[in-house]
């Protein structure tokens, strides 16, 4: 990662009862999730990147350009930064039609257009809404317009603050595919604030884990989520993300086989064609361990794996066991008694039994 491609951010904010203190080197491509509980500072960090927190001190270098350098008194105001920002609530201008909302930012950008307005409209599927006023839109439609409005400025950096948080499950599933298309079709780095592990697992390439205004971990999605040394706040929801390919459909039993490095998993039938890439999550609580390949069990997904690490879990009764299943990391949450009973130690080969997988697409 060279300085020309990277985003370097160092921010400090001290407020009564809250301190943000981060120092990050982030990739200038792909989706970076800023992940953490509410109050962890993820939205504040996103606002610092946008220049919306003028009290922040620190520095921000975007692909070689200095946007902020408090030591030298440099602070590029928000309206001069080539960003797109999607707020948690759609925040459309209520006095302007959908079309005029989209056009508002677009006509103020004079540089070459990377994202045409037509493309943004098509990408978000809002072509039939252009003449409407914002108060005539559903929550999901509003948020799609807000995303298209941000894209229409041809941003070089897209910042999204929990764009799905205000929506119910149905609306979420309506927008998620559009976000995935963004990820696949646009070459803009995206920073995505979320407290939902499923959203992060589905969309992100890179994760920054925040707690109490500090960075607890950062790195690639798979490696970061499979780490055991994170605060217990995260381990109650511990698990891994596996990227797999649809390998086979079993029409008779209505099942689909997914292949990934080191093994495969059988899940209920999926509509995707063979060869399609899918991500799924395996929660630590859904993985159990056996010394030998179990016979006479209803669990069909059994993987040979090697123990790499053992760590404390969120309760004194449990431990987290990190496994390597032929290149794919797995985490199992088992009781301390089971660990002693099975004599689980690092380096030991055993079988991981996966009770359930959560498909993310």
């Amino acid at each position: 990662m060279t300085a020309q491609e990277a985003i370097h951010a160092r921010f400090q904010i001290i407020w009564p009862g809250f301190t943000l203190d981060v120092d990050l080197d982030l990739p200038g491509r792909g989706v970076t999730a800023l992940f953490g509980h509410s109050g962890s500072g993820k939205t504040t960090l996103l606002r610092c990147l946008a220049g919306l927190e003028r009290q922040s001190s620190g520095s921000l270098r975007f692909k070689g350009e200095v946007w902020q350098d408090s030591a030298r008194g440099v602070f590029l105001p928000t309206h001069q930064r080539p960003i797109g920002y999607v707020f948690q609530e759609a925040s459309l201008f209520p006095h302007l039609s959908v079309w005029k909302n989209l056009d508002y930012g677009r006509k103020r950008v004079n540089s070459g257009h990377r994202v045409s307005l037509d493309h943004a409209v098509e990408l978000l599927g809002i072509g039939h809404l252009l003449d409407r006023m914002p108060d005539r839109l559903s929550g999901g439609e509003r948020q799609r317009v807000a995303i298209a409005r941000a894209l229409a400025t041809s941003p070089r950096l897209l910042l999204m603050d929990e764009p799905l948080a205000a929506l119910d499950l149905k609306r979420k599933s309506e927008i998620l595919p559009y976000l995935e298309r963004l990820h696949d079709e646009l070459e803009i780095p995206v920073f995505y604030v979320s407290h939902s592990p499923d959203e992060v697992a589905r969309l992100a390439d890179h994760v920054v884990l925040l707690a109490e205004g500090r960075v607890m971990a950062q790195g690639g999605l798979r490696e970061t989520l499979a780490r055991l040394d994170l605060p217990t706040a995260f381990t109650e929801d511990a698990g891994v993300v596996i990227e797999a390919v649809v390998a086979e459909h079993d029409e008779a039993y209505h099942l689909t086989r997914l292949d990934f490095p080191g093994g495969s998993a059988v899940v209920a039938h999926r509509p995707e064609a063979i060869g399609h890439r899918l991500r799924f999550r395996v929660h630590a609580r859904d993985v159990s361990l056996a010394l030998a390949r179990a016979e006479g069990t209803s669990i069909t997904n059994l993987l040979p794996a090697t123990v790499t690490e053992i760590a404390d879990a969120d309760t004194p009764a449990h431990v987290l066991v990190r496994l390597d299943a032929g290149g794919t990391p797995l985490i199992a949450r088992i009781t301390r008694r089971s660990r002693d009973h099975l004599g689980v130690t690092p380096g030991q080969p055993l079988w991981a039994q996966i009770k359930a997988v959560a498909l993310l697409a």
Partner: protein
Amino acid sequence: MAALSNADWAAVWLTFKLASVTTVILLIVGTPIAWWLARTRSRWKGVVGAVVALPLVLPPTVLGFYLLVAMGPYGPVGQFTQWLGIGLLPFTFPGLVVGSVFYSLPFVVQPVQNAFEAVGERMLEVAATLRANPWDTFFTVVLPLAKPGFITAAILGFAHTVGEFGVVLMIGGNIPEKTRVVSVAIYDHVEALEYAEAHVLAGGMLLFSFVVLLALYSRKGASVWK
């Protein structure tokens, strides 16, 4: 019922002119004050807000007295206007305008301030992320969204100036066609026991005020003081 005399028509016209000029000046002067009050975190906010609101509670004679002193030959404003070569303001139409601007200031500033506050920080941030500079944001987002507040402010400022009496009497006196407004004309008629004339003017004021307030309170979604 008696028809209006020429002198009374002159008072009506003068009142209309005074209220119109005052309203235009108030919208220009009041908007930056309202913006500052709506946005500032300064500790002076309370002080400035209270000063703006003073005419709501002060007897008009108090306001008129201080203005008279300030604009008089030995007052600071008076010395300044003399130095400028425009003479003294008391007992002139411009003097009445100055008095009316102070007198009706809260009726314009407060609705506009409420409207600015209702626009909210978020809309300004959204505009900034869409490349609008602060002036651009003010004219393309804040003003359109605050429009109902401006309409309320203009109506209240106008109507309140029409209804002014004490301040006018203190600094304007009662000069026909120059400073005699309708409210003062009514007072004169009553003093002279010309009840018929007083009735016409008073009834006209009552009708005018009612129509203005009716328009204000029946506007869709309108809330005058928020």
